[in-house]
């Protein structure tokens, strides 16, 4: 682990595949899919009935009831955050102990539910009791109230969680924070899915990233958090976060830069931040949405950064398994990247056969692939508005 890396000491998540990080990892390695028919809101007018939707387990429902949590975003977010803290040996009381400098950075895309009953004339679904408040102050206050630590809410569409981790990294490196919990949370509702239907980013099929047959993505929901601690104080239980990079496309509101310049800038910045060369990268967890425009842009970005070696770096997209979880996507993928380093195994990209990959990439398909070495891996997140973020994790 580079000297300037911070240690990832805890993981937690709620996703369409599993309601905890070990379960997510087991399911990804087993090539299971969390894509399923939506049951928690009406489907009229949607382009597809499928999504990476979460059907809360009895345990999660019980958690929501016990904690009196009334919105999907908070059920997912608080459960994931509690898991990450416990995994790292922290709890909310320890975070606010005297002498401990701690913070929470939460990424989200559209925040709480877009369904405002007074405007759309529809009743909210379960766990949407206070969900229609679009004021970001309410979201920040809800996390700050529960954990009693400084809380920052960052919203950069589907790059939100990656940016949350990047911000957390600098808080530890530059400002002496002892521990920063970072990640993202987003929930799926009818108005968000109708919007994506209107945008025609959704496939009526299944997501097939980088396949010639790809026709769009499927969105999802969930939350995930990483506990980051200053390396000298904590052994790297999982991995090190060695670097982060930001960039902005300045191209279009929804379409990525077709030449992949922005994505390449983010990857280069992240590697430079980590003090590493592209040759050090053993694996890339792709943004990999499966939309025609996103995938070609990301391939061109990879080609710029890795040159001919782009075709030899094992890479994968977990979005076909968990759905595109918007503001939580970056952290679910970061968790997959971290555990790939730990176990030296890359989970497969579902729904894609090796012979139908359109670009010269070493896309892991079919089943999970053990590798002799994963000492360094990238996780890419690219969002609407041209927001790009890349994280570098090291053993």
């Amino acid at each position, binding site marked *: 682990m580079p000297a300037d890396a911070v240690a990832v000491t805890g993981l937690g998540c709620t996703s369409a595949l599993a309601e905890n990080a070990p379960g997510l990892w087991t399911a990804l390695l087993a090539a299971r899919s969390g894509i399923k028919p939506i049951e928690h809101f009406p489907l009229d007018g949607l382009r597809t009935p499928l999504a990476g939707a979460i059907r809360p387990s009895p345990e999660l429902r019980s958690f929501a009831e016990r904690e009196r949590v009334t919105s999907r975003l908070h059920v997912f977010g608080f459960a994931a955050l509690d898991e990450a803290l416990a995994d790292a040996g922290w709890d909310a009381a320890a975070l606010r102990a005297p002498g*401990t400098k701690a913070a929470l950075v939460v990424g989200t895309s559209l925040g709480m539910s877009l369904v405002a009953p007074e405007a759309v004339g529809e009743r909210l679904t379960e766990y949407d009791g206070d969900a229609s408040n679009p*004021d970001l102050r309410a979201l920040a*206050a809800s996390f700050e109230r529960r954990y009693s630590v400084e809380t920052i809410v960052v919203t950069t569409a589907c790059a939100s969680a990656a940016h949350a981790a990047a911000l957390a990294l600098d808080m530890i490196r530059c400002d002496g924070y002892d521990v920063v919990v970072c990640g993202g949370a987003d929930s799926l509702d009818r108005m968000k899915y109708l919007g994506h239907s209107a945008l025609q980013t959704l496939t009526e099929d299944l997501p097939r990233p980088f396949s010639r047959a790809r026709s769009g993505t499927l969105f999802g929901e969930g939350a995930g958090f990483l506990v980051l601690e200053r390396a000298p104080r904590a052994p790297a239980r999982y991995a090190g976060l060695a670097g982060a990079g*930001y960039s*902005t496309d*300045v191209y279009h509101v929804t379409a990525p830069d077709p030449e992949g310049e922005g994505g390449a800038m983010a990857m280069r910045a992240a590697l430079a931040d980590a003090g590493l060369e592209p040759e050090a990268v053993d694996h890339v967890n792709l943004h990999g949405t499966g939309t025609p425009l996103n995938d070609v842009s990301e391939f061109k970005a990879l080609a710029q950064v890795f040159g001919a070696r782009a075709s030899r770096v094992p890479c994968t997209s977990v979005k076909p398994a968990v759905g595109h979880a918007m503001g939580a996507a970056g952290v679910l993928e970061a968790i997959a990247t971290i555990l790939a380093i730990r176990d030296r195994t890359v989970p497969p990209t579902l729904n894609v056969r090796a012979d139908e990959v359109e670009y010269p990439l070493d896309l892991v398909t079919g089943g999970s692939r053990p590798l002799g070495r994963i000492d360094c891996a990238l996780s890419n997140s690219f969002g*609407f*508005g041209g927001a790009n973020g890349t994280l570098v994790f090291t053993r």
Partner: protein
Amino acid sequence: MSEMRVLGAAVVGPAEGEAAKARATAFKRETRQRYLDSSVEAGLEALHAAMHGDADPGLAQAAAAGRIGLLLATALGPQASRGDYLRSYGQRGEKSASATLFTNCGYNIAGAMLARSQNIRGPVLTFGADDGWDRKLLDVARRLLVAARAEIVYAGRIEPGAAAIVGLALGRGDITVSWRLSSGENRAAGHEYRIETGDEPDGEARRPAGAEDMVRRIAALRCRPRVAAPILST
């Protein structure tokens, strides 16, 4: 490394509404945008004024190279787009769901538009403007500068019809933002900021700024003649 100089600043509110609309119209024409949320108009004008108020010829080059960042805090975000998107559905059903309005419901779209207007390719981040937003924004700006992720950071607040933005770089200037780590047992409380100006009466040159409305106060100091009425009261 304990000081940031203020490079430029602007506050735009209802009084600058005409100028903001004209700039927004020009931006829409240049970028072929059919639609802009009303919160973007004031922001475009504020960023333009804050960047060009400094007349630094290297700014465009730095922006294109990703060496300039943009940080915006907001509470309400794109309120008009969100309202129109939901009302349209409420009145006419799912077939009226507008891709354009939905896209503009994203809290970060205003920042993306502002970045595009000045070709800012570095970190462009939008934050929830909760209590202490101004101090948190300055903290992030300072860390981006210290970590060399940007050489200049424009930071401010954007709400429907109003925006305040300041440009910051490391070092001292006519207006300097200095900070020190909160001391003693309260290390977790973070940094205390002070604004220093050269034109304050003797004895008041150093004004402790606390954490309240920091960005607005900096902007007000930098561009007194243009300060609109308190606009960021949301």
